[in-house]
């Protein structure tokens, strides 16, 4: 089986220039990108397996002396390729604001409380079928300096490698029913046909009684079998 990384798949990505997200104006490349064939340099990529993470790295509620404040949640799903096959043994890193909408980062000066029991960083490696699971706190919404009264919807940042440098993905997961989603230029920058792929779904089946609500979020990375499937 030979895996290819179709350039067409990138049509789901937002453009570099999206003026409603003001910072893009000064940071979008102006000259055209140079299209290059995929060589071994693009078809390989970093491999970080189970040796890279500790068992506790996937539970953001157990990294300090006490539990963080906020609504405990489970975020889980599968990392898949474009043929729907699970991507095993791949690193998934996440970071997020606390339940009040404040990041641990020293540059975050939003006047909401920090939580001494929450750093907001997690990582896991997918299992043999591509499954991953985090336990965390539902992040809060927060204001940002894009324009008057701009607020980011609650979200969790994710970073994934997949099977090649070409499949590298940094993205954000949103929550269902958030009224800020349609107002957020970062989310709305995504072409409409692909936008809702970033909204997780509430998952009653994986919700743990008397403990935590669950949200399901499958992630599809570039990469598919070079041999086209038979149409049926």
């Amino acid at each position, binding site marked *: 089986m030979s895996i290819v*990384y179709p*350039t067409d*798949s*990138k049509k*789901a*990505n*937002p453009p570099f220039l999206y003026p409603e*997200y003001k*910072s*893009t104006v*000064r*940071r979008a*490349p*102006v*000259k055209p*990108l*140079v*299209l*290059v064939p*995929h*060589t*071994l*340099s*693009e078809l*390989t*990529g*970093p*491999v970080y397996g189970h040796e890279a*993470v500790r068992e506790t790295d996937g539970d953001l509620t157990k990294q*300090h002396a006490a539990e963080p404040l906020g609504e405990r949640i489970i975020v889980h799903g599968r990392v898949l390729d*474009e*043929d*729907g096959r699970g991507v095993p043994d791949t*690193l998934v*890193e996440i*970071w997020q604001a606390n339940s009040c909408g404040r990041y*641990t*980062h020293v540059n*975050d000066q939003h006047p909401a409380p920090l939580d001494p029991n929450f*750093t*907001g*960083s997690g*990582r896991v490696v997918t299992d043999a079928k591509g499954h991953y699971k985090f336990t965390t706190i539902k992040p809060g919404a927060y204001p940002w300096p894009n324009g008057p009264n701009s607020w980011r919807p609650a979200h969790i*940042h994710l*970073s994934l490698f997949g099977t*090649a*440098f*070409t499949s*590298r*993905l*940094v*993205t*954000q997961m949103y929550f269902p029913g958030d009224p800020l989603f349609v107002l957020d230029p*970062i*989310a709305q920058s995504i072409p409409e046909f692909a*936008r809702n*792929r970033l909204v997780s779904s509430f998952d009653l089946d994986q919700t743990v009684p008397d403990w935590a609500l669950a949200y399901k979020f499958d992630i*599809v*990375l*570039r990469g598919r079998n070079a041999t086209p499937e038979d149409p049926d």
Partner: protein
Amino acid sequence: MSAGVTPSQTIGPFAAPCLTPNEAGKTNYDWQQLINGNLVTPDAEGERIRIEGCMFDGEDKPIDGILFEIWQADGQGRYAHPRDPRRTNSSFKGFGRIESNMDGTFAFDTVKPGRVPGPNGAMQAPHIVVAIHMRGILQHLFTRIYFADEASNAEDPILKLVPADRRDTLIAKRDGAGGAYKISFRIQGNRETVFFDI
């Protein structure tokens, strides 16, 4: 079954506590850093090199807080990845990650990569592939670093696809014999770096 790929979003300004929490001279966060800017392993063969750089915006002002990631072959041109049949025989992984400083600078310590195969059997000149993540871009940028003292640059199949007057933006130059290789990236402007659509 065909599944639509998950779209990219900006890394935003607050990734450091997770991805680069323990860098020297910066605020340190209570989380262990998995990947850093020193790729050298004791058993890695090849020339030890340092690459120093800076990223500038369209007004030639340095940009801080950028996440730079590099991916490269070992000194013999072998990738530590199952898709490279010539697998490396050392513990050199070939991946580095660092956040730029307040003054926009960054540095990697690594070994100079060997040549790796390119399209149609042509060999590529020694190079490093780079992913650049920052606030204000909605998907990361891909570029490459080549080395000014490599004669094989003239026959590199990827450099040949770059307009001749822009190739220079991809080439790191040495600061005297044995010194660091230096490269400046520019996101906009006359000397805008060549970014690749892969």
